[in-house]
C-alpha cells in the first residue's frame, strides 16, 4: 500500500521538483506526520473526559501507529494493527462504551489533584523513557537499496515454522531455524480460552433484587435509546453467553 | 571347696530374698491384673509378704528355731561379716552387689521385718487407695532392709533414696490435715542429708586406693572374696597389686580398712584446711543425724509423726530413726576414725542436747503424738551419746570396754526404742482411731473404759520411761554409765534426763489413762481393744518385757561385732593416733595388718 503511495508520489515529486525547494525526505515527513497524530491522539485520550471521545481519539492514535508500522517496513504488523485493533478491539470498546454509556458515566470527572499528580508522574516517566531512548547508538543513513522488497510472505512462512528470511548458507531450506508454529498455536488456543472466559464472565445472572441500573433508569429520564440498546445488548450478550 | 565358698554362694538367696521379696510383691500388686476394689486381698497379701520376710530373717538370725544350721544362717559369736553376697554390678566404677550381715545389722534387719509385719497389720484401718498404699509400703520395706544389709556404699545410697520416696508419699497422701507440709519438710530435710552424704561418698571414693591394703585386709574386706582359694586368690590379689592407677572402691569394709591405715589417704588429703577425713565425717554425720534426728535438725520428726498414719509412724519411729545411728556406727567411725576421735565431743554433745531438749519439749506438748515424737528425739539422744563416747584414750590407758559398753548400749537402745516407740505410736493410734483427736488435755479415764488396752499401753510407756525389767532400761543405763568415762558433765546431764523422762511420761499417763472420766469428744466410741489391735500390741509388750528381762538375747548378737570394732579403733588410737609418728609407722602398719588378719 505504501509502495503504491510512493509510486503515486513520483509524479508529484517531479511536479514539486520544479519548485526552488530543497528535496524533501518524504519518509521523514510521513513519519513525523503519523508520529504527531499518534502522540497527539494519545494525549487527547488522556485529556478527554467523555468516554466516547476517548474512544474516538484512541482509534486515531492506533491508526497512526499502524502508519508508523508501515513506515518501519512492518507491513503485515501494520495491517494486523489496523484489522485487530481498529477493527476488533475498538468495536469491542465501542460496544462497551455503548453498554455502559449512561449519563452519569459518560463523563466521570477526575479530581484536579489526581490530574496534577498524574501529570507529574507521567512527566517523570516520560523523562526516563526519553533519556533511555536517546541512548541508542548514533544515526546512520540506511541503505535503501539493500532493503529487499517488502512482502508478507516471510511472516506467513515463519508462522508456519519456516524461516525464509534468514537462509543459512550451505543448508537445505528445510534445515533452517525453526519458526513460530508452536507460539502461533498457543496464541490461537489462548484466544479461544479468552473468548470462552469472556462469555462466561459477561453472562447475565439471575438477580433477586432489581438491578440497580433500573432504579437509576427511572431517575434518569432521557437517553431512552441508549438504555434500550444497553438492555437489549446486555440480554443478547447474556443469552449468547448462556447458549 | 573351702568352707567360705559354701558360705558365700548359698547366701545369695536368703539375703536377696529378704530384701527384694517385698519389692517383687509390690510390683505384682501394682499390676493392673490386681483390681483396686479387692482391698482385703491386697491387705492380706501385704501382711503375708511381710510375715514371710520376717520368718526368713528369723531363719537367718535364729537357726535354732529351724533345725540344723545352714551355711547362710548366722553364726552367733562370730564378729565378722556373714552371709556375704558379692556380685559385680557396675564394674567400670567397681560398684558391686555386696550384701552381708553382722552382729550390728542383723538385729536391725530382724527388727525391721518384725515391725513392718506389725505395721502391715496396723494398716487395716487405712481405706484410701489401699493398692497404692500397699505398694509404697512394701517398697519402703525393701529400701530399709537394703540399707541395713548393703556393704557397697553406692548400693547403700541407692537403697537410702529408695526408702526416702515411698515415705514421702505415704506421709503426703495418707497423712493428716497438714500432710503436705509435713511431707515436704521431711523430704527436704532428708534430701539435704542424702545430698551431703553423696558428696562424702564421692570424696571417699575418689580418694580411696585399694592398693594400700595388705592381702589379708583385701580378703577380710571381701574385695577379694574369701571363697577364692589358692591360685584364684593369688591372681585376684595380683590384679589389685599390678593395677597401674589407684583402684577406687565403694566397698564399705575396704574403705574402713583404708581409713584405719596409719598412712590413710583420707587423713592425708587436705581440703580447705581440714583433712578430707574430717569433711567426710562431718558430711556423713549431718546426713545421718538428720535421720536420727538430733537437735537442731529434728523438727521434721514431730510434724511427720503427727501427720503420718499410725503404721507409718510405727515404721518411722521404729526403723527409720535407726538408720541414722546405724550409719554413724557402720560408716562414720570406722571409715573416719581420726575425725571420729577429734569430733567425738560433737557427737556426744548433740546426743546430750537432744536428750535434754527433746525431754523438755515433750514435757510441753499438748498433742499426744507430738509428745511421743519428742520422746523419740530424747531417746535417740542416748544412742548418739553411746556411739560417741570414745573413752579409749591415753588417759584411760586405752581401756576400750567402757566405750564398747556405750556402743552396745546404743545398739540396744536402738532396738529397744524400735519396739517401745513403735508401741507407743500404735497405742496413740488406737485411741486416735476411736476419738479422732490427740489432745492430751481432753483425755482421761481411759483405764476405766478400756482396761486391757490401758494396761498394755502403760506397759509400753513404762518401757519408754526406761523402767527396769522393760527394754528401755538397759540401753539407757549402759549408755549413761559408760558416758562417765568420756565426760563427767555429759554423764551428769544425761543422768538428769531420767527425771524429765519420768515427768513427761507419767504426766501423760495421768492425763490420758488415769482420772475419773473422759473429757473429750466421741466418748461413746471408746470401745474395748479389738483382737487385731491386741494381736499387734501383745508382741510389742512381750518383746519389751523379754528384752528388758533377758537383754543377753540381743547382746549375744551385738556384742561380739561391736566389741571387735571398738577394740580395733581403740588399738588404732594407740598405734596410729597417739603413736610417736615417724619411726613406728611401718611397724604399726604391719601390726594393723596382722591384727585385721586375725
Amino acid at each position, binding site marked *: 500500500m505504501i509502495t503504491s503511495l510512493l509510486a503515486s508520489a513520483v509524479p508529484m515529486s517531479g511536479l514539486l521538483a520544479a519548485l526552488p525547494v530543497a528535496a524533501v*525526505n518524504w*519518509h521523514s515527513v510521513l513519519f513525523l506526520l503519523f508520529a504527531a497524530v*499518534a502522540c497527539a491522539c*494519545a494525549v487527547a*485520550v*488522556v485529556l478527554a473526559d467523555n*468516554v466516547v471521545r*476517548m474512544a474516538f481519539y484512541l482509534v486515531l*492514535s492506533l491508526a497512526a*501507529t499502524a502508519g*508508523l*508500522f508501515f513506515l*518501519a517496513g*512492518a507491513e503485515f*504488523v501494520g495491517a*494486523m*494493527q489496523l484489522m*485487530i*485493533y481498529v477493527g*476488533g*478491539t475498538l468495536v*469491542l*470498546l465501542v460496544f*462497551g462504551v455503548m*453498554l*455502559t454509556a449512561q449519563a452519569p*458515566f459518560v463523563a*466521570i*470527572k477526575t479530581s484536579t489533584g489526581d*490530574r496534577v499528580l498524574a501529570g507529574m*508522574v*507521567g512527566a517523570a516517566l*516520560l523523562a526516563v*523513557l*526519553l533519556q*533511555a*531512548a536517546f541512548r*541508542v547508538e548514533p*544515526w*546512520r*543513513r*540506511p541503505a535503501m537499496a*539493500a*532493503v529487499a522488497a517488502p512482502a508478507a510472505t516471510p*511472516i506467513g512462512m*515463519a508462522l508456519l515454522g519456516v524461516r525464509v528470511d534468514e537462509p543459512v548458507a550451505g543448508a537445505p531450506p528445510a534445515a533452517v531455524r525453526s519458526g*513460530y508454529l508452536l*507460539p502461533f498455536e498457543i*496464541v490461537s488456543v489462548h*484466544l479461544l480460552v*479468552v*473468548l470462552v472466559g*469472556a462469555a462466561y*464472565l*459477561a453472562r447475565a*445472572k439471575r438477580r433477586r433484587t432489581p*438491578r440497580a441500573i433500573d432504579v*437509576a433508569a427511572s431517575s434518569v429520564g432521557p437517553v431512552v435509546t441508549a438504555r434500550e440498546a444497553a438492555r437489549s445488548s*446486555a440480554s443478547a*450478550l447474556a443469552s449468547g453467553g448462556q447458549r | 571347696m573351702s568352707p567360705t565358698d559354701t558360705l558365700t554362694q548359698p547366701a545369695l538367696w536368703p539375703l536377696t530374698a529378704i530384701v527384694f521379696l517385698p519389692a517383687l510383691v509390690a510390683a505384682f500388686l501394682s499390676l493392673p491384673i490386681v483390681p483396686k476394689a479387692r482391698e482385703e486381698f491386697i491387705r492380706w497379701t501385704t501382711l503375708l509378704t511381710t510375715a514371710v520376710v520376717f520368718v526368713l530373717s528369723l531363719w537367718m538370725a535364729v537357726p535354732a528355731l529351724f533345725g540344723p544350721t545352714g551355711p547362710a544362717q548366722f553364726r552367733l559369736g562370730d564378729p565378722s561379716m556373714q552371709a556375704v553376697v558379692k556380685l559385680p554390678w557396675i564394674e567400670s566404677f567397681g560398684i558391686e552387689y555386696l550384701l552381708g550381715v553382722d552382729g550390728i545389722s542383723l538385729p536391725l534387719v530382724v527388727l525391721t521385718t518384725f515391725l513392718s509385719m506389725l505395721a502391715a497389720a496396723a494398716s487395716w484401718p487405712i481405706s484410701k487407695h489401699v493398692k497404692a498404699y500397699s505398694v509404697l509400703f512394701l517398697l519402703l520395706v525393701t529400701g530399709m532392709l537394703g540399707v541395713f544389709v548393703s556393704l557397697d556404699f553406692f548400693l547403700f545410697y541407692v537403697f537410702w533414696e529408695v526408702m526416702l520416696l515411698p515415705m514421702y508419699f505415704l506421709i503426703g497422701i495418707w497423712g493428716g490435715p497438714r500432710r503436705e507440709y509435713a511431707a515436704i519438710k521431711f523430704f527436704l530435710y532428708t534430701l539435704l542429708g542424702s545430698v551431703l552424704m553423696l558428696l562424702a561418698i564421692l570424696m571417699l571414693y575418689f580418694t580411696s586406693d585399694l592398693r594400700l591394703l595388705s592381702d589379708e585386709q583385701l580378703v577380710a574386706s571381701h574385695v577379694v572374696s574369701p571363697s577364692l582359694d589358692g591360685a584364684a586368690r593369688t591372681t585376684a590379689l595380683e590384679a589389685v597389686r599390678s593395677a597401674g592407677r589407684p583402684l577406687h572402691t565403694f566397698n564399705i569394709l575396704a574403705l574402713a580398712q583404708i581409713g584405719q591405715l596409719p598412712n590413710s589417704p583420707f587423713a592425708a588429703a587436705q581440703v580447705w584446711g581440714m583433712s578430707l577425713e574430717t569433711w567426710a565425717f562431718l558430711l556423713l554425720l549431718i546426713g545421718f543425724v538428720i535421720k536420727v534426728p538430733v537437735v537442731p535438725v529434728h523438727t521434721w520428726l514431730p510434724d511427720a509423726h503427727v501427720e503420718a498414719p499410725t503404721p507409718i509412724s510405727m515404721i518411722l519411729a521404729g526403723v527409720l530413726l535407726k538408720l541414722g545411728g546405724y550409719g554413724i556406727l557402720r560408716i562414720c567411725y570406722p571409715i573416719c576414725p581420726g575425725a571420729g576421735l577429734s569430733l567425738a565431743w560433737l557427737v556426744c554433745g548433740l546426743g546430750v542436747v537432744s536428750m535434754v531438749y527433746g525431754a523438755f519439749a515433750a514435757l510441753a506438748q499438748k498433742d499426744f503424738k507430738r509428745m511421743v515424737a519428742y520422746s523419740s528425739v530424747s531417746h535417740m539422744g542416748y544412742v548418739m551419746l553411746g556411739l560417741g563416747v570414745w573413752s579409749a584414750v591415753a588417759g584411760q590407758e586405752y581401756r576400750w570396754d567402757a566405750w564398747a559398753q556405750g556402743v552396745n548400749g546404743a545398739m540396744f537402745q536402738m532396738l529397744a526404742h524400735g519396739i517401745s516407740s513403735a508401741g507407743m505410736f500404735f497405742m496413740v493410734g488406737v485411741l486416735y482411731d476411736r476419738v479422732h483427736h490427740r489432745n492430751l488435755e481432753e483425755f482421761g479415764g481411759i483405764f476405766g473404759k478400756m482396761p486391757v488396752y490401758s494396761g498394755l499401753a502403760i506397759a509400753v510407756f513404762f518401757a519408754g520411761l526406761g523402767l527396769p525389767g522393760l527394754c528401755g532400761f538397759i540401753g539407757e543405763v549402759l549408755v549413761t554409765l559408760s558416758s562417765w568415762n568420756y565426760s563427767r558433765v555429759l554423764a551428769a546431764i544425761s543422768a538428769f534426763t531420767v527425771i524429765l523422762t519420768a515427768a513427761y511420761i507419767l504426766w501423760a499417763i495421768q492425763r490420758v489413762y488415769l482420772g475419773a472420766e473422759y473429757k473429750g469428744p466421741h466418748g461413746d466410741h471408746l470401745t474395748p481393744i479389738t483382737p487385731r489391735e491386741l494381736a499387734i500390741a501383745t508382741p510389742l509388750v512381750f518383746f519389751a518385757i523379754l528384752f528388758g528381762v533377758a537383754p543377753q538375747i540381743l547382746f549375744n548378737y551385738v556384742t561380739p561385732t561391736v566389741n571387735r570394732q571398738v577394740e580395733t579403733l581403740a588399738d588404732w588410737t594407740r598405734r596410729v593416733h597417739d603413736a610417736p609418728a615417724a619411726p613406728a609407722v611401718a611397724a604399726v602398719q604391719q601390726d594393723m595388718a596382722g591384727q585385721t588378719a586375725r
Partner: protein
Amino acid sequence: MNLLTAGLPSTAIPLFAGLLDAPVGVAHYLVVGAILFTSGVVCMALKRNALGVLMGIELVLNGANVNFVAFSSPYLRGEGSASLGLDGQLIALFVILLAAAEAAVALAITLNFYNNHATVDIDQADDLKG
C-alpha cells in the same frame, strides 16, 4: 530544510533539530513509543471510567509495540548493527493478539462489574481493599 527550520536558530534545540533534519531512526520510534506509553499509563492512572482504563492499557501496549517494530525494522538500523529482524514483528503481532484477548476479557469484567455495581467507576471497585 530552510522552510522547516527557517524560524529556528540551527543550534536552538539540538535534539529537536536533529529530529527534524536527521533521517528517521530508531530513536524517533522510541520517542513515539515513550509518549504513547506514558500517556497510556497516565490514562490508566487518571481515568475513573473502567473503559478509560482499558483504553490506557491499549495505549501502553501500543507503545510497546512501537518499540518492537522499531527494533525489528531493517530500515532504521545501519548494517552491522543488530536487529531483532522478523522476531520483533512477530512479537508485536502476538502482543496485538493478546491485547485483543485482554480487551475482551477486560470488557467482560467491566460489564460484570457494571451489572453488579451499576457503575463503571473503578473508584467504587475497592472490594480488594485490605
